[in-house]
């Protein structure tokens, strides 16, 4: 297959010389595979009713942007793979005129339908079986917005392939700095670490840091030895636009377990050195490309479109295809010609108002997109929100940073808090407040969700069809909806409360909602993150993602350089906590702690102190009610971890360190131990964590210290005395 395509490409090069202005005039038609299904659940509950690619992004379905771009990029033939809601996608293609177009100069669009595909891998296997792809093709998902010129990237790909048939794929990447605070890109994705050969642009390593448990990047040493130079990037964004050779399809077929394009396919190819396939990158210099993967990226890309980064795919240019025509006014306000706008209504910068929409007196619309045929009453405040078509918003409503789908009805005085998603035709009653980050749909939440994202049957119709007639709205988890004022207990439809099911947030939990919602990150969260970065990054451990910055790349090094020891201590403590919780093998724990020690370039003695601190802390956490139980748990903990501690107390200095640490703890951080000092000290001696030499030296050192420092020496005077006597006895015995 590859041979065939290559010979075609070679033959085409000569013939192409005749064509002048057409970008990519070549005899073998340029093909594209467009995945009209995201195979994720990020846009639920909306995607239960409409496929993601048909969701409007600033008035136009996302797929329209993608198809328009493909056509302008010179693609001759596009295969639209549709799975979930395939009839809707096909209907759209026919209605919008894409499907019927055929002939010179325009792109032929063919729908490929499958009902059992559950991942991008399956989709490509189906495409392969159809045998419609003959040459190199562009792989893109139907939610990608771009205006880049493919010419250079394609040329690069072709040239490379001529030289090296194993170069099967060119990934388009774009420079975009992730936020230092959240370690997210602007699109709400996790940052990606890539290693790229600066000369050949070959991709050597790819890791999206979805699971933040990775504190560092592990790069195979082969990569380092085989490449004289490589660049590590965490400031690149994956555009999810790939130029693929036909081999890619057969690779998917051969490796039937490849599901995800990046996590499986790309990583699989990079790891597999038997076949030797190579992936290259093309950095996008001028031009825009972004994929809408979650609500955050929906928000960001919408704003980019409004700010015209996607030119010419901007509302006033591209709207010619359908009827609505909008014009750009000053300050980035797009308004259709037939908008009924009250004189006292105020439309702020960077807003879009669709045709046939009426806006009443004293309304304020800021940074928002309002669809077609909406009716907005008086004194409505809409801020940073996306209102789709035919929405009715009655007087005095407030909508901020939310997504309101078509046909939604907000009754007077309703308040929609940031981050909400109201799916199609939901009704919100009078003076009802929809709490932040809630998702409301007329369809109930499918119960059989399994947590693994990849295995999920994205947007399939199954399990949805048997939705009960919604007489008993608010049934599913209605504790989340607290009608603000009139909690009168009546559940009549439409008079109060919300018509629709309130979806409980998935396994990500409410803690993570802020990451990918439309609403901006709340101030408190930002401050918290700021705090975490500037002071000590361990404080984030409640959310179970201890971050370790500055391991990653070239761009943002040295965010904080305060006391490395306290940081180290925190790290050790966290590691220890994990060991406690997950039952990590003690050997591994030692390894990890040693690793940390090396990373912070500290002494063995420091380690001892830190480990001891962690052990004691764990005892303290376990029981803190009375001194007796504390003593008991401490004894238990010391008993359990004595091997670990002993590992670090090989010399007297280290033992001293433990004692000093213990003293310090009693004085400063954990005063709970102070009355027990004298009782725990013998225990330490018994478990052979500290030797008598160490205790004696400690006592000697303290002799000359201040009175306040001697508290614990005095407290344990009896024990020291006993030790001394025992020593003398020993001496005597020996003599």
């Amino acid at each position, binding site marked *: 297959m590859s041979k065939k395509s290559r010979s075609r490409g070679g033959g085409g090069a000569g013939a192409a010389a005749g064509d002048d202005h057409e970008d990519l005039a070549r005899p073998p038609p340029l093909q594209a595979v467009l995945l009209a299904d995201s195979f994720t659940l990020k846009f639920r509950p909306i995607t239960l009713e409409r496929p993601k690619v048909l969701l409007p992004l600033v008035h136009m379905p996302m797929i329209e942007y993608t198809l328009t771009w493909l056509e302008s990029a010179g693609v001759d033939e596009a295969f639209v793979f549709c799975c979930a809601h395939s009839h809707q996608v096909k209907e759209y293609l026919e209605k919008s005129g894409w499907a019927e177009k055929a002939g010179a100069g325009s792109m032929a669009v063919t729908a490929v339908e499958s009902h059992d595909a559950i991942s991008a891998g399956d989709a490509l296997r189906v495409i392969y079986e159809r045998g419609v792809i003959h040459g190199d093709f562009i792989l893109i998902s139907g939610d990608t917005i771009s*205006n880049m010129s493919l010419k250079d990237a394609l040329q690069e790909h072709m040239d490379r392939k001529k030289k090296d048939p194993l170069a099967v794929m060119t990934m388009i990447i774009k420079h*975009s*700095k992730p936020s230092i605070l*959240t370690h997210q890109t602007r699109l709400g994705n996790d940052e990606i670490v890539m290693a790229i050969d600066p000369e050949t642009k070959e991709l050597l390593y790819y890791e999206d840091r979805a699971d933040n448990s990775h504190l560092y990047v592990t790069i195979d040493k082969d990569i380092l030895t085989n490449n004289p130079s490589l660049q590590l990037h965490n400031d690149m964004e994956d555009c999810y636009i790939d130029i693929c050779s036909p081999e890619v399809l057969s690779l998917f077929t051969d490796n039937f377990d490849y599901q995800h394009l990046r996590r499986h396919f790309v990583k699989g190819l990079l790891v597999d050195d038997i076949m030797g396939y190579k992936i290259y990158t093309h950095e996008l210099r001028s031009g825009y490309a972004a994929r809408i993967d979650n609500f955050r990226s929906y928000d960001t890309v919408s704003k980019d479109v409004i700010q015209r980064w996607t030119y010419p795919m901007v509302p006033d240019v591209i709207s*010619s295809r359908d009827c609505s025509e909008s*014009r750009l006014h000053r300050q980035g306000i797009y308004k259709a010609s037939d908008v009924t706008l009250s004189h006292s209504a105020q439309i702020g910068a960077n807003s879009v108002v669709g045709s046939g929409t009426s806006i009443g007196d004293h309304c304020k619309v800021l940074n928002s997109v309002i669809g077609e045929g909406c009716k907005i009453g008086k004194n409505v405040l809409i801020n*940073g929100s996306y209102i789709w078509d035919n929405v009715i918003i009655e007087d005095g409503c407030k909508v901020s940073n939310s997504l309101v789908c078509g046909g939604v009805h907000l009754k007077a005085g309703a308040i929609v808090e940031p981050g909400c998603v109201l799916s199609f035709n939901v009704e919100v009653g009078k003076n009802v407040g929809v709490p932040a980050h809630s998702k409301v749909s007329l369809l109930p939440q499918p119960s059989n969700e399994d947590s693994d994202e990849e295995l999920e049957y994205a947007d399939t119709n199954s399990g949805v069809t048997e939705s009960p007639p919604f007489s008993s709205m608010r049934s599913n988890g209605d504790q989340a909806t607290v009608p603000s004022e009139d909690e009168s207990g009546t559940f009549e439809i439409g008079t109060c409360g919300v018509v629709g099911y309130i979806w409980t947030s998935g396994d990500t939990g409410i803690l993570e909602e802020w990451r990918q919602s439309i609403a901006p990150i709340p101030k408190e969260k930002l401050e918290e993150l700021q705090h975490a970065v500037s002071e000590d990054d361990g404080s984030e451990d409640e959310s179970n993602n201890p971050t370790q910055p500055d391991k990653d790349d070239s761009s943002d090094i040295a965010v904080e350089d305060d006391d490395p020891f306290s940081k180290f201590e925190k790290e050790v403590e966290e590691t220890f906590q994990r060991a406690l919780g997950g039952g990590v093998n003690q050997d591994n724990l030692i390894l990890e702690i040693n690793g940390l020690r090396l990373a912070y370039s500290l002494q063995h003695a420091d380690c001892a102190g830190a480990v001891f601190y962690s052990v004691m802390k764990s005892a303290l956490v376990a029981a803190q009610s009375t001194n007796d139980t504390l003593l008991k748990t401490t004894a238990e903990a010391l008993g359990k971890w004595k091997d670990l501690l002993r590992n670090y107390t090989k010399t007297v200095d280290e033992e001293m360190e433990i004692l000093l640490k213990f003293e310090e703890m009693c004085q400063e951080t954990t005063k709970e131990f102070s009355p027990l000092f004298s009782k725990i000290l013998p225990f330490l001696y018994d478990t052979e964590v500290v030797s008598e030499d160490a205790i004696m030296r400690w006592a000697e050192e303290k002799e000359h210290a201040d009175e306040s420092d001697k508290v614990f020496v005095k407290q344990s005077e009896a024990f020291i005395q006993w030790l001394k006597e025992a020593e003398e006895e020993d001496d005597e015995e020996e003599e």
Partner: protein
Amino acid sequence: MLVPLPLPLPPRKTLTPPRLLLAADPHPKSEPPPHLLGSPLRAPPCRTCSHSSATSSSSLSAVVRKVEGSHAVARQTAELLRSVVSQHRMGSSANQAAALADAVRAVGEQLIAANPIELAVGNIVRRVLHIIKEEDISATAVGIEGLSVTVDSDDEYDSEHDDRPSLSAAVLAAHARNALRAPSLQTLLEDIPVSPAISRTASSTGDSDGKSKSAGDKSSTRKLKHDVIAAIGDLIDEIDSCYEPISEQAVELIHQNEVILTLGRSRTVKEFLYAAKEKKRSFRVFVAEGAPRYQGHVLAKELVEKGVQTTVITDSAVFAMISRVNMVIVGAHAVMANGGVIAPVGMNMVALAAQRHAVPFVVVAGSHKLCPLYPHNPEVLLNELKSPSDLLDFGDFSDCMHFSTQDGSPLLNVVNPTFDYVPPKLVSLFITDTGGHSPSYMYRLIAEYYSADDLVVRRKSTA
């Protein structure tokens, strides 16, 4: 400053001075005033349109978007309209010309809506409508004279407006009135009887000679179509060769050892300067680079290839250099009916600098750039905001656009307008293919190319 007199006009000089042509006028008009240009006047898209070209035009409208530069756009539009005319099936209805015009209007409307900023599209659509009207009138004139016209006299009709010896004086006058006058009530009324006139003549001849009726009818429609296609072909030729008559005037304007300043790159300006150079004029050119697209760099290269002394300056240095400049010569995107110019961004600044130092500001523009509309709010409505990526690198500024940490509202806004509006009072002279004209004369020049009732290109609701 030498201001060449306007070239001799076609024999229409005796007409009363045209009253205001385009401004909101007191005359009763069936059409909305043209100042509504900004607000779209679009009928629902013509999906149901039965013209075979209608579907292709919607894709071609996308093509028009892609074509850059008013010259290329004008050419493509003319070619498209020619194919529309040639594909148009002449029905047997009496008013052939009106049907043809309607077909053109339907496509033209879509084209204009596809790219309202590119005024050349509208200009060409209006020119074609004007051509149809003229050819129709000449055909009527022939009809009055009887069906004596032989096929070999066709060639005379191919040329666009001038020399039409066989026309009767009455028709010529009517035609000229039609072209130059505001759409008064009279012209509106005149517009309607055209069709009865044809049918009447046809029937009158038919009465006398029943046999020749159908044959004559058919041949006349075919001839109309043929003439229109030929005339559009002339129009395309005219667009193609518009640089020649303009650059012929270069020697008269550029004198020995003068310093010329220009902004950005205009092909018309380039040809103009080339022509002066070929005539052995020695002069120097300051090229303002024309941020953010820096087309001035390209122009500088081209000029140096021809051996012209060239200096590249930044746009912001224009004011500092203008005192050493003898003349500013620039291109335009469009010339409006009031003599105002839509030009690449930065031009207004250059014009103001030129005015401050009393340096002549000369605009060179082909006739396809003459737009019969008045600019209303041109800074916004006739402007186009391009992608900010011309100005900034997205990657470098991506950290300024983390909306999630900026409370939702973008803090960084980038505005990248394409055009400037230069008011007529800042323009010293226009050089078009018909010669040099002062801004206040532009409305009259424009009136020669367009019929007054085509200003708003919209399909008439056909009964």
